[in-house]
């Protein structure tokens, strides 16, 4: 038996998307949020999407940005591209800017798309208290095109509220397949639209796709009654540019690129918004938004952002507003006005399977069933549930922040993410009403600035330096914008929170390695990994940081079809596993932690003993005897401890047939003896390690036939 090792270097493996693409045991499976950096040395690794940073205050147009909202615009074999939009954090003004980025999950690269400046229908100063985007596709029917004229067949352009300013592409209903987009300049009817530029000639029956992109903003205003809900219609991603697009205020015309005021009354009473929540769109004419208002005794205003509006100076007072509730009851702790509120349908908690509105106060999380948020209701809140802030480990482990500021639902892991202040920790947790502890704690202020001109050996970390988190989770990726107004304090991160090992069983956020072929294996004895231990500088100023932990599993069955179950290895990586023709490794990562810097695995491997003589022994011809029918080995290499149980198998060397199988601990078919004096004498066998160069062991079968060519194999058991 000889020791063999197989090493897999992860930066050079062919990959596939585990859980999405067809399973392939010959390639490196990248589960959800798992990433491969191709390369050699430490530059080649695999692990959760690495922490990267974008810097809104360092773009050519600086815009302090907050309240991220993200969507997975592309998620297919060709790529994974997210769109991220952010609200203006700068000093309140009559215009507000919306910032846009893309994030490529495959390459972990940010790209600043640009911004648009929104002109509101009043010229007083606005502060954004709640921010969302809405993205819907219109693909009904087919079209033909002649120049700038688009004619539809069974299309519903007007009915389905397509807007001037949206973009349209031809040839597919999948926007990621569109190579050329055209902007809509007019909508004539359900079957007629006009483009700003010619699209040439396209035959009838052609599929198309229109991206209906809107922005939803709950605001307060220097003139209180100018606050409330505003909706920007007619956006398209190309309108965002690094020199800035501009959205005008609406006048009397609906469904064009403009900013609309969905007032709750002629004199607005929705003046103290502290956040909003958006329901799932139920039809092209129904998409409900719930605005939280009044800090001490909240009221909810319900709006339909796809209602047909009747406008005066951009203001609708009767169609967008559906109703307002009464005061729902006194709450404990004050809510912040920092994008508070989230609609969620959880798979746990008291509202499992039901859509409910969740929002935070400094010390509580409240939940109200959407169906209870009715006109004039004064019980919509008091009839709901409340969760108290009890940090993981209890208040003797971490003090309660008393500063819970906003809440986000991470559907990928069926958990809420709660942001606190700039100097407190944040949470990932279930919603519970039993006064129990929240699940996980994460995030910290390291005081690191992550400026672009920072020392090159530092590595980005989602520190709360200078500002609390504002968060959005999409497809498991958590986008975090720190709420500061300078380049040092306003940063944007993408964090693979949902890739945490605690939730890997439901997220498939795993690194599944290619099967390792192990010919002539006898026993697997050791598993190992090599990871980047310090990301960034490991010498000099030592600005590099250590990563979060990971854990490794193996399986020896069900490899070819992904049916085998996994067995967790401990940190030693040692094992004594019966051999099989192949073995497969899998790694899970912790990503919710203090620093949250995901591990980077460069290589993995397995060590096993093959079916040759165990590497600690050498067959001895002189100490063996065909005539006397015993077999001897010199003890050549010490084990470093107690000798493990050894096993002997005698084969018919001609036929390969097994003649005998015995072990040192259960020697039913023969006798083990040991010599420490170069074979001069043999005594009882023991498990003492090699003592000198004249140590031998010998096995004498009780019976063994004559005239057989025998192959003796000594291995570990």
């Amino acid at each position: 038996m000889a020791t063999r090792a197989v090493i897999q270097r992860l930066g050079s493996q062919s990959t596939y998307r585990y859980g999405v693409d067809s399973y392939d045991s010959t390639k490196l499976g990248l589960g959800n949020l798992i990433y491969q950096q191709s390369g050699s040395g430490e530059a080649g690794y695999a692990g959760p999407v690495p922490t990267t940073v974008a810097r809104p205050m360092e773009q050519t147009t600086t815009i302090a940005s907050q309240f991220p909202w993200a969507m997975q615009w592309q998620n297919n074999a060709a790529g994974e591209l997210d769109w991220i939009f952010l609200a203006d954090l700068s000093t309140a003004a009559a215009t507000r800017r919306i910032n846009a980025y893309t994030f490529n999950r495959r390459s972990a690269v940010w790209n600043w798309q640009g911004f648009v400046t929104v002109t509101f229908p009043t010229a007083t100063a606005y502060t954004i208290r709640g921010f969302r985007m809405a993205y819907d596709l219109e693909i009904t029917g087919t079209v033909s095109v002649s120049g700038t004229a688009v004619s539809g067949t069974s299309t519903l352009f007007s009915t389905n509220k397509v807007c001037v300013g949206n973009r349209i592409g031809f040839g597919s209903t999948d926007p990621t397949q569109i190579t050329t987009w055209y902007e809509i300049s007019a909508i004539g009817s359900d079957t007629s639209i006009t483009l700003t530029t010619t699209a040439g000639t396209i035959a009838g029956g052609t599929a198309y796709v229109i991206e209906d992109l809107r922005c939803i903003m709950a605001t307060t205003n220097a003139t209180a009654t100018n606050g409330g809900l505003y909706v920007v219609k007619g956006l398209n991603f190309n309108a965002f540019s690094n020199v800035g697009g501009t959205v005008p205020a609406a006048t009397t015309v609906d469904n064009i690129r403009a900013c609309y005021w969905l007032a709750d009354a002629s004199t607005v009473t929705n003046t103290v918004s502290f956040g909003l929540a958006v329901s799932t769109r139920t039809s092209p004419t129904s998409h409900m938004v719930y605005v939280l208002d009044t800090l001490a005794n909240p009221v909810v205003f319900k709006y339909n952002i796809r209602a047909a509006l009747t406008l005066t100076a951009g203001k609708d007072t009767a169609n967008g507003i559906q109703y307002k509730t009464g005061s729902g009851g006194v709450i404990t702790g004050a809510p912040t006005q920092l994008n508070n509120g989230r609609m969620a349908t959880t798979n746990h908690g008291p509202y499992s399977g039901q859509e409910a509105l969740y929002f935070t106060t400094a010390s509580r999380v409240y939940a109200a069933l959407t169906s209870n948020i009715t006109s004039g209701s004064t019980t919509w809140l008091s009839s709901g549930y409340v969760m108290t802030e009890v940090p993981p480990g209890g208040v003797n482990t971490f003090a309660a922040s008393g500063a819970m500021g906003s809440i986000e639902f991470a559907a990928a892991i069926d958990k809420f993410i709660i942001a606190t202040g700039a100097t407190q920790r944040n949470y990932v947790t279930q919603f519970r009403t039993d006064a129990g502890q929240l699940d996980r704690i994460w995030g910290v202020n390291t005081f690191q600035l992550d400026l672009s001109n920072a020392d090159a050996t530092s590595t980005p970390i989602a520190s709360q330096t200078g500002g609390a988190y504002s968060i959005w989770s999409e497809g498991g990726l958590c986008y975090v914008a720190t709420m500061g107004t300078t380049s040092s304090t306003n940063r944007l991160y993408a964090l693979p929170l949902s890739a945490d090992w605690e939730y890997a069983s439901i997220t498939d956020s795993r690194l599944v390695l290619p099967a390792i072929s192990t010919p002539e294996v006898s026993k697997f004895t050791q598993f190992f990994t090599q990871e980047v231990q310090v990301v960034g500088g490991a010498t000099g100023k030592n600005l590099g940081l250590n990563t979060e932990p990971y854990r490794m599993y193996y399986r020896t069955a069900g490899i070819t079809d992904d049916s085998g179950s996994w067995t967790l290895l401990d940190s030693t990586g040692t094992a004594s596993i019966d051999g099989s023709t192949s073995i497969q490794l899998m790694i899970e990562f912790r990503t919710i932690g203090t620093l949250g810097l995901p591990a980077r695995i460069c290589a993995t491997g397995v060590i096993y003993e093959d079916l040759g003589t165990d590497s600690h022994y050498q067959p001895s011809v002189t100490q063996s005897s065909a005539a006397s029918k015993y077999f001897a080995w010199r003890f050549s290499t010490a084990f470093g401890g107690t000798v493990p149980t050894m096993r002997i198998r005698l084969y018919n060397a001609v036929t390969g047939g097994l003649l005998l199988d015995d072990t040192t601990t259960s020697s039913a078919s023969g006798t083990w003896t040991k010599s420490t004096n170069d074979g001069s004498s043999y005594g009882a066998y023991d498990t003492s390690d090699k003592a000198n160069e004249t140590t031998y062991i010998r096995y004498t079968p009780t019976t063994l036939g004559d005239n057989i060519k025998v192959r003796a194999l000594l291995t570990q058991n």
Partner: protein
Amino acid sequence: MIHIEQDQQLKDDSKIRAAVPTGDYNETDLIECYVEGADPNIPTCMYQAQYVVFGGPIYGQTEELTEDQVAALLANVPHDEVINNRKLMDGKKPAAKFVGRVIKRRGGPGKRELRKDQVDVPVEQKVVVPQQVTPTENVIDTNTATSTPQSTFSTTTPATNVDTSVSTSTSPFSTTTPAFDIPNDTATSTNATTTLDVPDLDTDTSSTTPDVIVDPVVSSSTQDVIDTASSTVPVINTDASTTTPEILNDGVQALSSKNPVIAFAKKQIGRKLGL
């Protein structure tokens, strides 16, 4: 102030034209616009006056345009030499002197109000607050008003109900601030009026203890209305078709001690204080 001609093309979009009457407008006024070739009487959108004239580059700057910047842009200095140029920004006065309004194609521009958060108080108008004057604090938190980014948490106090840069404190001086309601004689509007407010005294909300609390919004029931028919105050005719809108005295002019409005205000305040 920014001059806009009716039917003027937008700087950045030649297909959009201003629908409003020719005149000088506050930088942040919202100007009704229409699509070229469409009915000008059905404006489809509103842009800020400064955007109409200067285009999108002005939004590349987070801070408001200053007087110096507007002057430079009007002098055709390239925008990249003006926008975000700290020399033209630091310590300079914001260009927009008035609260922005919606400027419609039809109808008068309505009441013009000086911005409370931008008005500077001339030294000679500083008034020491008499000790007996204790404003009735009816203030709705101004911490997150127009001069303060909202990046801080308010976790212990239900603060910031409303964004407002203006205290609603009452003051015995509130009735001393005159205003001039001037009939609007525009042909297209029969009921619109233009009000020229006197600059308010120290309404800078960044100061936690203002020297004097003056109700910046004078109620029509208490203000000293001067009948323009008999006063010497310049009558302001907003009919752009017939006059140059003299209303567009900017704040600098209004603050001149020679300004009859200021003189009147000083006189009134002095009388109240027994000076």
